[in-house]
């Protein structure tokens, strides 16, 4: 039982953090938000650093690490509010590497280089992970509509859940296929998102139904790490601001009422930090179930509105102005809380497990 990063993990964390602080000024994030377009320069840079394949096998040019390292990567990107499909690509790639029926090394190799970008397309109009009406016919043409697809146009490939002749599975569809069209959505997080329509688009089956479930679990765990990153920065910014903002002749941070709000934000952050990395480590080592993933996603999705809204309370009017960086974490945090299963959906998922004894170790 060791909840702390190894030296290698700490090195990865600090290297990525330093790189992002130097390479991604927040004003660049504002530009990409404005355009609702992915930060391609950053993506290329990260490919050059070798980080896109951190959790992929060495055989495809990856770093051979596990889900914890993928978590560190998306956690750090969330701390910088970077407009890149980190969770989407990591989750897709890990599923392709570990759960595909055939050999996907060619695609993964190109993904590690930054030449290919794969994003999942799962949800449909009814916003229910159980629904899959998209279908693939005998000539491998996929038809259907997928909603809330993140970064669909930056992607070169979509990993689409659909029912084919062999049942439910994951299919690779090329974004450039004439049968694929995207209708942009304007989401809270101000990141690229769309409804994607597939009209007899050529599809290649890569994995069965169990891979869909694995994709959802991994995406929930990684999204939880993103949310943790948002929580952490909102707290850090609050401490920094209240330490310098003077009212009634003393820094706000010296008022007990302010300190106690911050202490509560801290408890949410620290408890979720443990749970998020415990989940990643346990998923990596086959010790976690879909219930565990849902529980952690429910936890962070409940905590992030609390932490960011307390941050706003303590920042006052300053925190609402977009020249201040706080809003990034409020809007992204909420967007991610809704993604891959809201708190309610995830609670719903663990409701069928409530009869088993509560965990205490």
């Amino acid at each position, binding site marked *: *039982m060791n909840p702390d990063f190894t030296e290698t993990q700490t090195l990865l964390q600090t290297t990525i953090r330093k790189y992002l602080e130097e390479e991604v000024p927040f004003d660049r994030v504002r530009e990409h938000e404005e355009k609702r377009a992915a930060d391609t320069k950053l993506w290329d840079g990260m490919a050059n650093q070798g980080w896109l394949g951190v959790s992929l096998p060495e055989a495809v040019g990856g770093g051979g690490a596990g889900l*914890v390292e993928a978590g560190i990567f998306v956690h750090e990107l969330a701390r910088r509010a970077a407009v890149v499909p980190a969770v989407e690509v990591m989750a897709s790639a890990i599923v392709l590497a570990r759960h595909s029926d055939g050999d996907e090394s060619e695609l993964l190799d190109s993904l590690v280089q930054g030449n290919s970008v794969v994003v999942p397309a799962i949800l449909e109009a009814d916003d229910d992970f159980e629904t899959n009406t998209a279908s693939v016919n005998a000539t491998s043409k996929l038809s259907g509509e997928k909603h809330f697809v993140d970064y669909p146009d930056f992607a070169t490939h979509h990993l689409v859940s659909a029912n084919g002749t062999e049942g439910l599975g994951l299919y690779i569809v090329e974004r450039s296929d004439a049968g694929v069209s995207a209708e942009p959505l304007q989401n809270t997080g101000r990141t690229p998102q769309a409804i994607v329509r597939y009209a007899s688009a050529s599809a290649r089956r890569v994995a069965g139904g169990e891979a869909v479930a694995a994709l959802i679990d991994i995406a929930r765990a990684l999204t939880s790490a993103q949310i943790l990153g948002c929580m952490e920065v909102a707290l850090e910014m609050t401490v920094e601001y209240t330490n310098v903002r003077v009212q009634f002749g003393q820094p706000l941070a010296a008022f007990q009422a302010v300190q106690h709000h911050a*202490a509560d934000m*801290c408890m949410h952050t620290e*408890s979720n930090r443990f749970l998020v990395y415990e989940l990643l*480590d346990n998923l990596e080592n086959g010790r976690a179930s879909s219930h565990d993933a849902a529980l952690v996603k429910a936890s962070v999705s409940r905590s992030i509105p609390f932490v960011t809204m307390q941050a706003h309370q303590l920042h006052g009017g300053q925190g609402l102005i977009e020249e201040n960086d706080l809003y990034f974490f409020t809007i992204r945090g909420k967007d991610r809380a809704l993604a891959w299963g809201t708190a309610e959906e995830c609670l719903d998922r663990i409701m069928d497990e409530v009869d088993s*004894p509560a*965990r205490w170790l």
Partner: protein
Amino acid sequence: MDFCWPDEYLSFRDEVEAFIDEWRTPELSAEMREREGAPGPLTRSYFEALQAKGWMSMCWPEEMGGEGRDPMYQFILVETMEYWRMPYGNLTFTSVAPSIAQFGTDHQKEKYLPGIWKGERTFAIGYSEPNAGTDLAALRTKGEKVDGGWKVSGQKIWTSLAAHSTNIWLATRTDPEAKKHAGISVLIVDTHAPGVTIRPLKTMSGLTTYETFYDDVFVPDEDVLPPLNGGWPIIMHALNHERVGLSPTSNLARNYDVVLEHLRESDPEKLQDPIVRNRLAELRVDLNRHRALAIRNAVTIARGEIKPAEASMAKISGSELRYRITTLLMDILGRKAGLERGDERSIEDAYIQGNYLSSPILRFGGGTNEVQRSIIAMRHLGMTR
């Protein structure tokens, strides 16, 4: 980073559970309940068996007579005992004995330690006073130097177990001229000494505590912990490993499990209600968040690192979850959950009801949660004083 519990911890948990299985009888529970934690004959033999296992002092340093075992064993012991609602060491074992072993004179060690181990000597803690609670160092019970010892006068409150104890571990002001932290000594007072008066105070959770009065009580020099006027560090001192289990998850998890068990047997339909299930799912999230903070704190302490804010977080989270979880579980159970201890229709002898009513103690006791939140803000987050 590795979140797997190693086999040696899990097999220790199994060993503790096997021991509990052997001793957890209705007779023992009845005796403990009647005597409110003061050892009766069954409890005494249970403690002797526990002592024989070596678990009470397994994590003590070897020079103090322990085995110097990894403090995570203490964490596993506490969590396992708390889950099964079994006693595993009161303040006599966890605070007084180690303090005597570490700070006491040879004479004090010989006089008190063997009796403590046999369960013949139990101590009540005399720290709080009517005007010295959270601000403990403001205590006013005073000792006046007389020939061969000290003449003590004053009043203590929350001297729990005083009526069932042989001694009181008394924080006393022995130098009225010194600064408030510097003039305090720890005195060992015989509960039967002339001038000691013990008055019961019944609390709303059904437990009785005591206030104690000292009217010119004579305490011989040999019963003063050395050094004179150096009592504050002794009062503040806690053995490192004792703090690993300061805020267990398992007793709260047990409340959850007991309610589920009860509903399965007596009201399975309620358990199918989606609203009830949703509430239970939320409780599972809350329990896990507390588990995270409790384990985090234990791991840090077991490594010998000192991060007071982690202990504060575990303390706040456990004590506040206790009233939330008991309230919610009582609501789910319905009117029956409001029955008091002693009513045979109550569930698990109204344990959860008692837990609800005693939950305020954990929030303000042991350093109020307000003080703990300020510790987190100032010592962990670096907020301005």
